[in-house]
């Protein structure tokens, strides 16, 4: 893809990436900001995503709620999740646009065993490169947000690309363009944080004391952020993790275990070789053969 050449890589799965050439201006980190308080749940973004990415979500079944499809799929890279939040006499409809968070510290990429199947550009976007994907599902285990979906048809992993193919030519993501209430903003991460600050001040002035920005430090911040009315309780929003981080199990599996295991195998091999060289082979002696013949009778006959 041409995108690959136009965007510099910061990370590449199962490979090391050379540091950017000296003197080259560093790419500015970008972010998408989703203002949950402005979302009316119209799903224009969901449709725009299918449209732009030429995805085909087969018609399924409704479970009687607005959640439709009920979960992310290989074709639906974003879905709206509706929560009825009752507190006191109040009922609030919390609508969260779910999808890849584009973690600055991406667990999917760290877990992926296939070189170059997941990349992170210097602007922070995390992208799946299908040509290199082997369909193992390790990204699913690495992701703290339960985002990647593996296709039963192509055996490849899919998720939101943050419209990297639009961003590279200076366009905002399709979902941001389509939103009728401008609940989805796109720009530099710095600008998005500043803009979120204004929105939060406004929300607080209207009684949302706990309004705040969701940019979780456990994954070193994300390149998709939310403005939440109740930022003290992210899990209210259809189970958005309160404090996401890459699972320690994945840390062990993809961390210490790799070098230690290879070292153990190399040690076992080296020990065998040394033993053979210093001890020499363990041979049956002529004496053993005689003793055996004494016991069993000889084979001369």
């Amino acid at each position, binding site marked *: 893809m041409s995108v690959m050449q136009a965007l510099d890589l910061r990370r590449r799965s199962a490979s090391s990436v050379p540091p950017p050439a000296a003197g080259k201006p560093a790419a500015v980190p970008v972010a998408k900001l989703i203002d949950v308080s402005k979302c009316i749940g119209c799903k224009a973004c969901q449709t725009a995503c299918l449209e732009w990415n030429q995805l085909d979500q087969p018609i399924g079944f409704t479970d009687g709620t607005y959640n439709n499809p009920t979960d992310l799929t290989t074709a639906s890279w974003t879905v709206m999740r509706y929560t009825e939040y009752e507190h006191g006499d109040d009922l609030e409809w919390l609508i969260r646009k779910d999808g890849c968070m584009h973690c600055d510290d991406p667990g999917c990429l760290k877990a992926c065993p296939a070189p170059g199947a997941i990349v992170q550009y210097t602007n922070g976007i995390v992208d799946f490169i299908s040509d290199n994907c082997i369909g193992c599902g390790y990204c699913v285990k690495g992701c703290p947000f339960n985002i990647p979906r593996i296709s039963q048809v192509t*055996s490849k992993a899919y998720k939101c690309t943050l419209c990297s193919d639009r961003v590279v030519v200076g366009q905002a993501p399709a979902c941001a363009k389509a939103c009728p209430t401008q609940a989805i903003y796109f720009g530099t991460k710095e600008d998005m944080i500043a803009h979120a600050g204004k929105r939060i001040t406004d929300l607080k002035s209207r009684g949302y004391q706990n309004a705040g920005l969701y940019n979780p430090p456990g994954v070193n911040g994300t390149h998709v952020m939310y403005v939440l009315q109740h930022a003290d309780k992210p899990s209210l929003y259809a189970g958005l993790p309160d404090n996401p981080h890459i699972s320690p199990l994945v840390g062990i599996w993809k961390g210490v275990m790799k070098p230690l295991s290879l070292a153990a195998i190399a040690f076992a091999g080296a020990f065998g070789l040394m033993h053979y060289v210093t001890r020499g082979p363990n041979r049956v002696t002529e004496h053993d053969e005689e003793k055996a013949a004494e016991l*069993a009778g000889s084979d001369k006959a």
Partner: protein
Amino acid sequence: MSAHAKPVSRYTTAARINHWITAVSLILLALSGMALFHPSLYFLTYLFGGGQITRAIHPWIGVVLAVSFLGLFLRFFTLNLWNRDDTVWMKNLGAVINDKEEGLPEVGKYNAGQKLVFWGQSILILLLLGSGFVLWDTYFASYTTIDQKRLSAVIHALCAIGAILIWIVHVYAAIWVKGTLSAMTRGSVSGGWAWKHHRKWFRQEVGKS
């Protein structure tokens, strides 16, 4: 040359075929698994025709191994039960690896080291099979939670390394102790080998005929 005893039969043809199916599948599993375990070994996927195919066939080879190993288990588990002599043998492991087994209790069909290899692989292959199914997303993704899959990935990789280490010990022992390989190639060993390494078993075999 002095008189030699005639070769002692150690394995039936069926047992040897069973063993070689197990051996080949274990090696293929180790190669295909290690390819996905460490990026520096990813090139091993070329042996199988690429990453997608490696990922897809590894679990199937695992099923072959599990069935084949079950065959070996049923054949040999009674001969691998632990006894007091095995404890003495293990305590003198230092003498054994220095080729000074004289004076140790006479060994039956299997010595304590071989028994540990047997039980070690039995347990590890069972754990590999269990954790392998949890990781087998193509068919079983929906049966477990993501946290269970994470735990299984750690267990599977740990057990795989354990099984590979035991395999190295097993193969090295067969190379170091000359005359052993013929048990698996021809099904028989020399009388001298039987006398030196498995005297108690040798006496039983002689007693039979």
